[in-house]
């Protein structure tokens, strides 16, 4: 069997976080009633003209700069034609000939080290509405159209076919989301459709340079799906070639339940989009000073921040990568450090307990009730010995549900650690008296027996005794 390699390219649609749509003043708010945010403009009413939202251009430039792109001096909108009931004008205003940003890259981590994935272009366009079917699309007696999403501003980021494995595809998509989130131009919420991904896949025998026939997998809505669908598609294509078949150029869709890709339409059915410059919108000459001023406001992006965490805080690379993946997490981490300047301890809590609870509750760090200052306060209490590590876990869970200050919780529940030798000694005496068997075992050299005794002391103190002191006192007494 020949060895194959895959050639993969991604097209990622990112919805920009503007207040109004790209070509009209309708609101962009998510989750409102169907057709609540529409106007004659985004409904494609006769005679209404598009007027470009300046904020969209600014955000597109911002994203382009963060992706190391060259920002065009001259940019223009083109119409892309296709018929669909959710597309009000039956053309989409997009960019084809003169996109706003070109020739960028994103750096990802692979097993073999760092790798640059080229970005061909990033262009601005409007979104379409959506169809709501009654039950199944194939059997629905009618479908309803919701145009709230029609005219939402998007940028489409097209990668070079530099990606070779499904893991790289996923890493690229995750990295790209991270960068875009840092710039603040989009929430990049895949579950709300504000980040959507199409993957182009082809395979070829290792050592050849000619590109194989590609297929496109549309609308992948999770990073896991990107990886799984790409894995499946590569294997499917290799199987076909191995059996002497050939790949059909087509658009496919990913069935997440079955874990397979399914053909949507073949090349013969492919659209001829008939792009041409939109005569209703004037071309834009981009002012260099404007671009420079946008550049000046770009935040520290994930890669820079990661390097700084390693050099400045002495964190392991793994921690630095995890902490800087989203801007919110990195900001949270740094806010904690302002109160409790022990990076590794803070990192451990964020990557450990906090992440575990967030995942279990399907929450983002921005939704977390524990404010960074509160976590830092709790860590200070631990550091001072006011609470034990074990108590801290309890306090932390309580903070997560109630959002109360750690001090309040400790006071309310009487969780202060007992570090008074006299008080602990009394309990120790009591435990020794009650457990002669274990005492004897210990004295006979069974070192393990002390663990049981420590446990008994802790139990008797309701977990509040300082474990180090308990250990020390027990050994002294015995």
């Amino acid at each position, binding site marked *: 069997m020949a060895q194959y390699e895959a050639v993969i390219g991604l097209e990622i649609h990112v919805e920009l976080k503007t207040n109004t749509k790209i070509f009209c003043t309708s609101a962009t708010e998510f989750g409102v009633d169907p057709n609540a945010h529409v106007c*004659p403009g985004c*409904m*494609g*009413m*006769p*005679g*209404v*003209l*598009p*007027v*470009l939202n300046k904020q969209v251009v600014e955000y597109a430039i911002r994203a382009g700069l963060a992706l190391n792109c060259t920002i065009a001096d001259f940019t223009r909108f083109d*119409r892309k*034609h296709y*018929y669909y*009931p959710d597309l*009000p*004008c*039956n*053309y989409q205003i997009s960019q084809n000939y003169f996109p706003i940003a070109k020739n960028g890259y994103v750096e990802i981590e692979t097993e073999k080290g760092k790798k640059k994935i080229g970005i061909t272009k990033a262009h601005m366009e409007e979104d379409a509405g959506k169809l709501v079917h009654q039950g199944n699309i194939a059997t629905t007696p009618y*479908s309803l*159209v919701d145009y709230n999403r029609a005219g939402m501003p998007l940028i489409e980021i097209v990668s070079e076919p530099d990606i070779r494995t499904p893991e790289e595809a996923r890493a690229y998509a995750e990295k790209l989301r991270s960068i875009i989130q840092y710039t603040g131009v989009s929430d990049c919420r895949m579950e709300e459709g504000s980040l959507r991904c199409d993957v182009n896949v082809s395979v070829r025998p290792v050592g050849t340079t000619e590109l194989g026939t590609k297929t496109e997998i549309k609308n992948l809505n999770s990073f896991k799906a990107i990886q799984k669908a790409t894995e499946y598609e590569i294997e499917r294509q290799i199987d076909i070639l191995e059996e002497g078949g050939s790949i059909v150029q087509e658009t496919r869709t990913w069935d997440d339940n079955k874990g397979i890709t399914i053909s949507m339409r073949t090349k013969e059915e492919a659209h*001829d989009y*008939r*792009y*041409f410059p939109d*005569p*209703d*919108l*004037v071309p834009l000459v981009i002012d260099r000073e404007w671009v420079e001023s946008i550049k000046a406001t770009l935040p520290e992006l994930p890669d820079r921040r990661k390097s700084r965490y390693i050099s400045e805080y002495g964190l392991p690379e793994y921690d630095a990568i995890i902490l800087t993946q989203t801007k919110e997490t990195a900001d949270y981490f740094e806010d904690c450090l302002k109160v409790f300047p022990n990076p590794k301890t803070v990192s451990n809590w964020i990557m450990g307990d906090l992440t575990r609870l967030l995942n279990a509750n399907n929450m983002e760090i921005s939704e977390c009730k524990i404010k960074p200052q509160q976590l830092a306060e709790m860590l200070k209490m631990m550091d001072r010995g006011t609470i034990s590590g074990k108590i801290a876990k309890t306090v932390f869970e309580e903070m997560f549900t109630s959002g109360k200050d750690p001090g309040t919780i400790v006071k309310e529940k009487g969780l202060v650690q007992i570090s008074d030798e006299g008080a602990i000694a009394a309990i120790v005496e009591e435990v020794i008296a009650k457990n002669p068997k274990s005492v004897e075992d210990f004295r006979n050299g069974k070192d393990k027996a002390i663990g049981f005794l420590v446990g008994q002391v802790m139990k008797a103190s309701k977990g509040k005794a300082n474990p180090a002191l308990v250990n020390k006192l027990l050994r002294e007494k015995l």
Partner: protein
Amino acid sequence: MQLYQMTARELHRRIVNKEVSAVEIANAVYQRIETVDEKIKAYITLLKERALERAGAVDAKIAAGEEIVPLSGIPIAVKDNVCMSGVRTTCASKMLYNFVPPHNATAVEKLEANVAVLLGKTNLDEFAMGSSAENSAFFVTKNPWAADRAAGDGSAAAVAAGEAICALGSDTGGAIRRSAAFCGLVGMKPTYGAVSRYGLVAHASSLDQIGPITRDVTDCALMLNAICGHDSRDSTSVNLSVSDYTEYLINDVRGLKIGVPKEYLGENIEPEVREAIEAATEKYSSLGALVEETSLPHTKYALPAYYLIAAAEASSNLARYDGTRYGYRAENPEDVLDMFIRSRSEGFGEEVQRRIVLGTYVLSEGNYDTHYLEALKVRTLIKQDFDRAFEKYDVLISPTAPSPAFKIGEKAGDPVQMYQSDICTLPVNLGGIPALSIPAGFVNGLPVGMQLMAKPFNEGMLLRTAYSFEQNTPHHCKYPEL
């Protein structure tokens, strides 16, 4: 002279002097419509109640001693491809037979701000595609000068027949000017961007422009004053400080340099038309203008380039009519695709479908470079022809149409021959320059139009040149007998 035959300027004077009320004028015009529109067929929709209300508001102002602006109380017709909120806007198409837009065109909004009395919506070729109003899905509009001849469109017919004092028209390849020429009126296509296209149902966006059709040059200036100006809802609208166009109504062309491009007086121009234009240019010479022959060498490529560009844009602009959200929907479609196909096949007329097919072809892969881009290059050459000419001349003169109004049905079966009627006007749309048509004489009782062209945003020069001609010729004083 009847009220419905007067100019806006004259009616304004009488309203202000309380010689006549705006309601009386409106009633006189509606009376006239009732009498003659059966024969002319200018209107698709009439708005009598609404119009009389507006007229009453003007009279109330006068009674209260308030000042009114020149178009207050003036009955104006609106071509039915210009949106009026709450009023059906059909574009003379089955596709939009029941379409009531929720928005006003900016030009309509501006006229209403002037308290003009908007009478109703006038007939046109379906989606403004055609040269004679014969492609209307509803009926053919007749020329008030000869009922067997084409009027061009309902707006011009209405003004000529006394069914309106002024009108709003639209001009993609010459409709305002050609219709004005056919009906013996003044019609102006302003510079592209001078009047907002917001609310004008698009035919070909880079060529379309709204403009006035009036009885004389003075009314044309008054209409321009009302409708020109920047509009934030139209990105192609230009931000210029609009001056008062009546300041250009000067009866003096001494020293003016006038070029007569020979390509516009070639063999496809009927001899009588050529003679009328030659007589007009002699008139200008006698008034002290410097007239000489010139050349716009790329004129012959204008027609094919125009039809490629206009069709390409039309195919795109008309894609939205699919039966989904408004307008005509085919009955009992099998599925979505069937709904699209049948709604469009049943809703659009033949000429519209012809242009959609042509435009789709022109923009399709493989044809874009060889057809559409080539047409754009021709467009640039035509613009450059104009630029060069206007370095030397203040105004260019040509016939507006190759012939006076042709007979209804005469060209209906031959689209290319129909397209030929626009050979003098469409280079102006390609060049984005302003142009005006003014009556230059009569041939066999039919008006002949003369086209004046100027460089972009030089509408004032057109008004001055046209006004001087008008003041020294009798053509605008004639009325068709109905």
